[in-house]
């Protein structure tokens, strides 16, 4: 086995093995558990760094394992996958740090961190899947490994949220499976390829291909929280804050959005999808989701619920970017995959901090929190402004490219959708900022756990992760033109995608 083959497996193993060991660790072995978590997370970052350098230089990483005759579990680390891998690996490190601080003294931590690691392993598998079959395997693993995290608190409310989450995701998984087997039945394989593979079937199968597309998008759309499949996301906010971060930024909704990207670009091929008239309906669905999510967010008093509806809206920016035919829209969608993750994780970290430190769960309780917790609130502010799309933040970059993409694709209405959404974003974030910074505190905090001390507004492990991710939010906005920015990488992917389209090189099926 060459290095190019085992590197993808090593990326999986760097979270799988620590996770499995953590499961069997006794609850009290905190030191070893923390060490394992961090060693795994850092090892993964190093491995991802190696992969990034390699892929930028044009190296191909891949490995496959036959599961059934004609059916392979196949991995590849390509530019698109690495975008997602890097995001998840980096955010995983911060979320782990945050979770260690957040769960200090809580019960069942071995179980929590075990599933946490499995969850990230599944995400890595999704990112590196080289065919739809492999994608599905890890997609379902992600469902299963997040369920125990969602219901971690073991309360009736947690259980209700968890059950709704399961009902949606398992039903979505069933639709996805149906689509995949059907496609596999028609094509004999489901390998991802730059120009897509569905075009090989020809126009007489158009109806079948459209039905399959519907099934596939319904399947991944559940996790991506496309309206009307988004119902689970606001319910799942009963989970502990690090899990919400995981659901909203690192793994789950991202997996769905990433699935949409893979399906449109590498199964159908963006030109063939356009020819089948699939892109416009997808764009409309994304647009509805964007507006509806933002609209619903306006009326939520529960902070995490408001953030959840915000996610519903923001993740569909990615879907919208994908559905805009042309490289500029692609770049906008892909870069938002990263930017949304960075910003939303900051917001959830901060929401967790308010809840853990002061017992604040509702927007109406936030008056004056900025003076009590200035650093947290600065991070929250940066991320919220980023969500609105204020210049110099990462969000502005995404929105600029998406708008340009919409214009280039001749879909002027999409630009209006983006503007409407930005206005709504402002409408539900700015009141919060107003409350925290400018309204005076009149009552006592609902439940103050951590007493205020100068420069120690809350535990450091809770404070550092949002500060760092908020810094990223600014950096990705200010230095978007740097070659190390997510934007540069998204351009690389788009360039490779559309160059392959132009050269008309047929994708070769794998079993020949």
């Amino acid at each position, binding site marked *: 086995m060459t290095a190019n083959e085992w590197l993808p497996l090593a990326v999986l193993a760097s979270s799988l093995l620590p996770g499995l060991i953590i499961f069997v660790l006794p609850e009290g072995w905190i030191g070893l558990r923390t060490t394992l978590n961090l060693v795994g997370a850092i090892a993964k970052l190093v491995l991802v760094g190696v992969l990034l350098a390699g892929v930028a230089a044009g190296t191909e990483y891949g490995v496959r394992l036959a599961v*059934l005759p004609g059916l392979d579990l196949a991995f590849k680390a390509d530019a698109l996958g690495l975008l997602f891998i890097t995001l998840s690996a980096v955010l995983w490190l911060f979320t782990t740090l945050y979770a260690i601080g957040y769960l200090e003294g809580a019960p*069942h931590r071995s179980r929590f961190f075990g599933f946490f690691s499995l969850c990230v392993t599944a995400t890595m598998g999704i990112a590196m899947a080289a065919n739809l079959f492999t994608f599905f395997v890890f997609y379902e693993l992600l*469902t299963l490994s997040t*369920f125990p995290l969602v*219901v971690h608190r073991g309360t009736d409310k947690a259980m209700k949220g968890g059950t709704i989450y*399961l009902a949606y995701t*398992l039903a979505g998984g069933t639709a996805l*499976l149906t689509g995949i087997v*059907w496609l596999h039945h028609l094509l004999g394989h489901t390998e991802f390829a730059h120009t897509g593979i569905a075009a090989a079937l020809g126009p007489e199968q158009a109806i079948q291909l459209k039905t399959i597309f519907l099934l596939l998008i319904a399947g991944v759309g559940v996790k991506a929280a496309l309206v009307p499949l988004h119902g689970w996301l606001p319910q799942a906010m009963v989970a502990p804050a690090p899990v919400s971060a995981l659901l909203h930024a690192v793994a789950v909704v991202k997996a769905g959005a990433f699935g949409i990207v893979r399906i449109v670009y590498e199964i159908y091929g963006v030109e063939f999808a356009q020819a089948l008239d699939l892109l416009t309906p997808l764009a409309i669905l994304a647009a509805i989701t964007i507006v509806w999510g933002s609209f619903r967010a306006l009326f939520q008093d529960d902070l995490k619920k408001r953030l959840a509806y915000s996610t519903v809206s923001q993740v569909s920016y990615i879907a919208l970017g994908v559905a805009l035919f042309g490289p500029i829209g692609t770049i906008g969608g892909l870069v938002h995959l990263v930017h949304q993750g960075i910003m939303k994780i900051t917001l959830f970290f901060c929401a967790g901090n308010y809840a853990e430190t002061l017992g604040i769960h509702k927007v109406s309780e936030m008056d004056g929190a900025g003076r009590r917790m200035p650093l947290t609130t600065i991070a929250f502010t940066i991320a919220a402004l980023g969500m609105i799309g204020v210049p110099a933040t990462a969000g502005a970059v995404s929105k600029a490219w998406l708008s340009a993409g919409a214009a280039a694709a001749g879909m002027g209405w999409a630009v209006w959708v983006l503007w409407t959404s930005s206005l709504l974003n402002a409408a539900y974030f700015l009141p919060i900022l107003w409350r925290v910074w400018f309204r005076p505190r009149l009552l006592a905090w609902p439940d103050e756990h951590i007493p205020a001390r100068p420069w120690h507004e809350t535990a450091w492990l809770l404070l550092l992760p949002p500060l760092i991710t908020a810094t990223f939010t600014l950096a990705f906005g200010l230095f978007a033109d740097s070659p190390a920015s997510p934007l540069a990488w998204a351009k690389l992917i788009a360039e490779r995608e559309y160059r392959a389209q132009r050269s008309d090189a047929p994708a070769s099926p794998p079993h020949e």
Partner: protein
Amino acid sequence: MTGLILLPLAWASLAFVLGPGRGKWLAIGGLSAQAWLAFDLAAKVGAGGTALLHPVGGWGAPLGIDLAADGLSAVMLLLVQCIALPLAIHAGAYFKRGDAAGAYFWPLAGFLIAGLNALFLSADLFNLYVTLELVGLAAVGLVAAGGGAQQVAAALRYLFATLVGSGLYLLGVALIHGAYGTVSIAILTPLVTSDAPRLVWIAGGLMLAGLMVKTALFPFHTWLPSAHGNAPAPVSALLSALVVKASFYLILRLWLGPLAPLTSAIAWLPALLGALAILWGSWQAIRAERLKRLIAYSTVAQLGYLFLIFPLLPGTDALEAGIMQAFAHGLAKAAMFVAAGVIIEATGRESVMDLSGAAGHLPLTLFAFGLAGMTLMGLPPSAGFLAKWLLIEAALDRGHWGLVAVVLAGGLLAAVYVFRVLRQAFLLAPADAVVKSVPRRLEWVAFLLAAASVLLGLRGVDLVRLLGAGA
């Protein structure tokens, strides 16, 4: 290959001689040797690509009895030994000294396993009847062992079902013998044609019906929930994982062998019953009050999948789907019953509603239950998922969308009853809960079996290859 029959017969009878409660190490030693023999046989069959034949007594059919091992037999033998060995280790820790239920566990289990191995190797319809009875009576004995009224009643119900099943089968064999003068499968296969006399059709119907009763196919399943739901955990595991698969195997043998020319007309009947079994069994599992009864009804549902393949036979992936399902379900259900046994032993409660907090006290066991549940739901990367995949592909191949819908619905229903348990277990424990400590070995066996059912999903290709050998 004879070792697989002789060894368990020997250790079973010696365990009886040794006396009540004894024979554990004899059994574990014997089963280890059997496991090695089964792998060796699988390697030989796989390498040779042809069936191995052993004429008992050196006479050869039709005068004598032939033993034959092809890929299908080899897979089933592997299944038996791979499940029986860990279960024996589990049972060794489960039954305490002086435990009435365990006093004769070893000889009974030995005869059961001998019967199963003999069944999977036999190529003679009458000899198969004797092996069926050996398996059936041993299974009844295991259910009844040392039990109270509930268990004895369950055993009796099971006994009558299995006797009716083998009675129907025997009558079929008698009619076949009357028509052709032989009971050798190999000789019969070319003799039976679609213009066979009516007697042969009746015989075929009787044999299949009898075996369906024994496999607990809906609506003949009524005996199963009480038998599997009342027996001690290692026994339930053996019965659900292996015993019902034996009669299914025989149906498959007949269907693909001598009865092949007669079955095309009725191929939809088993599939229809299988579909009803999936729906009804799942529904009952969703409603069941006791944990073990829930698992037992899940067996009813999971057996339904096995019968969905019949309209797809002979076709690509259909046989593979059935056997993959049999294998996956065997491992997973054994794991699940063992896990349930651990939970019940630890908490002293049997009801699903009383599981609250189990996830906190018995994380490994619950993890095993979850993994086994993955296989039952057909979620990747488990072997149950591969079975589902193969089944859907085979159904699409024939354009049978109805079967696809049943398979998918069954998976979702399974999710409902599996998560019904997991959800309850994740709830916070009531303050007055008392939990006994249980030997770790019990927990590990459940985990290993469950993990095997999942990991097999990554090596499905080996199983499919072996299955193709000598067919």
